[in-house]
């Protein structure tokens, strides 16, 4: 994606003026000049209107959510709050069932076993801790280390995957940020987490993206190829 920096700066300045107007922070003269400008500048008018709509929409979403709470009784909310445990029990029943099916049917469960095993086997190949550089970025490092440990230990994969997906997205943003340098390790951990969760296609997508930057011949590229061949 190409970003026009000068246009971006103009739009950011426009947004700051819109905010001043919306918060009533303009002098009467500034305000009347701004209102006049809105009439003639279609792009500014459109941006201002969308931001006003955005504020209203967010308020309405919250009003809707609160009403949903208010329309729920005590017993229902307690039941909903406990749902996670029910899902968790279902999850373990599913795992137990898949072990049983391994004996009865064979291949499908064997595939499950193979894929999740690959995720565990390669989890530590490019652990985030191997890339951490001492004193910088303490919070970022702690966060990445904790997630890396979850993948290594197969702990709480659902939440770990959600967190890694967000970091993977941040790490691949056009703007340099605190996760950019850790992109390969975040991607690796995410792919291994997907495999442990038997999400083969999602894992392949991340691995293929990583292999564009780390082709065969590099340490990571070779490992990726090994995994892809096994899958």
């Amino acid at each position: 994606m190409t970003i026009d920096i000068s246009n971006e700066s103009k739009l950011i300045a426009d947004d700051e003026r819109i905010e001043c107007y919306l918060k009533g922070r303009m002098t009467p003269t500034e305000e009347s000049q701004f209102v006049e400008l809105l009439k003639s500048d279609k792009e500014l008018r459109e941006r201002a209107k969308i931001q006003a709509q955005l504020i209203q929409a967010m308020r309405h979403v919250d009003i809707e959510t609160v009403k949903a709470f208010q329309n729920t009784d005590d017993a229902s909310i307690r039941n909903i709050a406990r749902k996670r445990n029910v899902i968790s029990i279902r999850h373990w029943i599913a795992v137990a069932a898949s072990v049983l099916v391994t004996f009865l049917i064979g291949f499908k469960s064997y595939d499950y076993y193979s894929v999740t095993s690959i995720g565990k086997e390669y989890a530590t190949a490019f652990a985030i801790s191997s890339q951490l550089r001492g004193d910088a970025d303490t919070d970022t490092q702690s966060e990445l280390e904790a997630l890396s440990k979850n993948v290594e230990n197969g702990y709480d994969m659902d939440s770990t995957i959600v967190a890694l997906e967000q970091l993977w997205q941040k790490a691949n943003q056009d703007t340099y940020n605190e996760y950019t340098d850790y992109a390969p390790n975040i991607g690796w951990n995410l792919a291994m987490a997907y495999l442990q969760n038997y999400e083969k296609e999602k894992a392949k997508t991340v691995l293929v993206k990583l292999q564009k930057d780390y082709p065969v011949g590099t340490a990571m590229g070779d490992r990726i190829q090994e995994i892809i061949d096994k899958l």
Partner: protein
Amino acid sequence: MLKDYNRILSDFIKKQRDKAYIFLQKSYQLEKDDCDAVFQDSLIILWEKLKDVDEQGIINMTSTSTYFLAICKNKARELRRDSNKMIHAIDDDEQDFSRTPQYKQENINFLLTLDHESDIIRQEEEDRLHQLVKNLPEPCEGLLWGYYRDELSLKELAEKFDYKSEGTVKVTKHRCLQKLITKYKEK
């Protein structure tokens, strides 16, 4: 109508569960069972707190999501207090989530009616944006809701989401808004 409220509630809870578990594990190193307990207690507290709030009260509150996470945080502190005397929980009732919105309603209304559109068109636009703000991807969800709903400053957003500087937040937030506008214009 009741069915819709069930869906709205379950969507909200699903989203908050993912956020809360990540936050509780990262910030308080809670085990899964403790996360379950904190989440369940917090949800019931939120339900009790919201029982009698009217529409203006909701607008004068931080977002429901921020409110819920703050309750989770307090519950986690309470849980840790038992094992660590140095951490003291704040009672839920001591926490104040009300605020005076900085956005002027009359200025919002002026911008909304500037194009003199019909009520039908305006309703369609509102519905489209309503769906978009409910389904924003991260980091845009955190940044845009933090900025436009919780009215946090760039500095507060940088601290909350661990950005290096206000400048990074400003640009990232701007790009999020741009993406939202692009999607909004796709019909």
